[in-house]
């Protein structure tokens, strides 16, 4: 049975602990290819191609922005080999090509296909994309710079925001019972 089909059919509920069920799956389906077990060039390229599909911006194509997938602090590192392999397997199923060699539109189709299948595969994709979004948007890799792509300038933006103003409050005022207000 193809790995992707097995993941699709595995009825694991989404509820916050679904990813932990991936661990036995890794053994049931056999080990993932060696090239995804560590942060090889192929693994990193796959992660970056995924990241730029999630966030279509040149600025995400910095290996630091996918560190989160390998960092044991966040917990996704246990699932990362299976996740990366799933991207390639699905790409191969749909287009006969590795994930790193297809177009942006084709990568979108791969991701959407996995999400539509549901199950553990969708959990893996959702877990990875949230991790990357948070890492990138929050400027975790560079607190000084933040994420200029979305208008968050990190520490360098302190004191630089748009000035405030006195609002033009015209009323009519709804009467506030004295008990409510400060």
């Amino acid at each position: 049975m193809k790995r992707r089909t097995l993941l699709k059919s595995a009825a694991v509920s989404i509820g916050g602990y679904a990813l932990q069920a991936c661990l036995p799956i890794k053994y049931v389906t056999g080990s993932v290819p060696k090239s995804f077990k560590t942060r090889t060039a192929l693994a990193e390229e796959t992660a970056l191609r995924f990241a730029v599909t999630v966030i279509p911006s040149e600025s995400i194509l910095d290996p630091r922005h996918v560190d989160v997938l390998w960092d044991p602090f966040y917990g996704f590192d246990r699932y990362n080999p299976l996740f990366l392999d799933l991207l390639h397997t699905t790409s191969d199923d749909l287009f006969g090509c590795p994930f790193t060699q297809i177009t942006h539109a084709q990568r979108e189709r791969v991701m959407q296909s996995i999400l539509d299948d549901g199950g553990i595969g969708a959990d893996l994709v959702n877990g990875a994309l949230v991790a990357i979004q948070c890492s990138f948007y929050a400027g975790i890799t560079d607190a000084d710079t933040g994420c200029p792509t979305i208008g968050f300038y990190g520490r360098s933006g302190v004191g630089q925001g748009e000035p405030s103003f006195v609002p033009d409050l015209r009323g009519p005022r709804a009467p506030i019972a004295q008990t409510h207000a400060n």
Partner: protein
Amino acid sequence: MKTLTTDVLVIGSGFGGSVVARRLQEEGHQVTLIEKGPRIDPYTDFQQTQDPKYLLKYIHNISSDHLGLTYAEALGGGSGFYEMASIRTPSAVFEQVDSENGNRLWPHGIDRTILDPYYDKAEEAVNATIVDWDRLPRSAAVFAQMLDRAGYTPTRIKHAERGCIGSGYCISGCIYGAKQSMLVTHLPAAEEAGAQILTDVDVRYIRLTHSLDHRYEAVCRDRVSQDLFRVRAKAVTLGAGVVGSAAILLRSRAHLPELSQHVGRNVTTNGMVQGLGLLPDDAPVIDMYAGRSHSGVICYDHMDSHGVTISSCNTLPLYMYSAARITHDRDGAKHWGQEHLQLVKKIQTHGLVLYSLGMMPGVGMIRINGRGEPVVESGNDDEYTHYHDRVSKLLRDVYRRMNCTPLRVERINAEGQLYSRTHISTTHMTGSCRMADSRDAGVCDKNGQVFRYDGLFVADASALPTSLAVNPSLTIMANAERIVPSILEYLS
């Protein structure tokens, strides 16, 4: 096992414990304050960063299907990380009743007018003031104006600050000392008066001694050395928060068998429900990531109809995108890809966060697991869903009335997965050791003294019996100020 002796043991250094520690020490009683988390120097230990590796040193969470409780373990407790909003609880809150028996949830004799003098004292201690508009984030003015145009009444609230520059990193800790947390107010004053503060110490349980004088003994573990030691005290005040105080009392039950069955129960969320919408294109732009996080504006117009208040806040990216899947509110809208990136960009200039706090019943419960650590259970499923749906609809109606476009906000867990059921996450919980008129209804009396255990007091949010519909920080401080005389009377 080493034994320390003190007059008063205060457990926890947040809004409640710090107030009690200072006031009692200033009255000449030797206070030992124990804090589970590390000591913090706000000028050197706080960082302006969104890095979870830093934040999770101090911020913790316990979660169940419906309920997530977020709290701090650090000197100063939650005060180091809150948004400085200093708001008095509306009078209507004190008249909430138990839906099962119709009894008033707050002890008789406690209402807003009783607390007002203590609110005065609490505000003075943290310099709670209404600041000028030019020191608020731009979103505050926009929010006030949008409310006004929609026929609602924007009301200003006070901030506990001195010299805030609006960095926007309120929740990661103020590196300037501008936020008037316990770290720059009550705790230094307590130490200056002679209080002893021990950090990185976990109180495992409390038991009675045979001494007539030092009646209580807390068994503690130093989290650094792992050594156990005892602290003997004439009186003990719990200020470890809704999670911490309940956990300590639950672990103490074998030694304090007369504790009420309400320990750990009646946990409220303060009815926290959030929404996000887009301002119309012709509205003044905001700057979501600049300026202090709480806008300083609140709307009380829905207290009578829905039992809720509505405020707005700026939210840094991590807190937004790690907590919820945000999309356009239409079928097929993706939470990734080009359209989503454009939405994320638009949120910076046109995003308006509304957050509502309200009088939601306390149906959560804290218990301890086999390792003696706290876990939370949700209680009544229907209560959460009904409340959340009702208030979410209200927020969407408010957005539309302000000509804003509501976005779809679906909460996600730490692994990026949608919760399968309604999930309310809060930092404003109350109730796990609530005050009541009798032991059948609560854990401590109206003076915070635990039923059947004279000299054991509760001074934090866990003593507050209900949701408050506003930020609870000022009320925790005011209530702590209110019970100090009772502790002094006991000690005398």
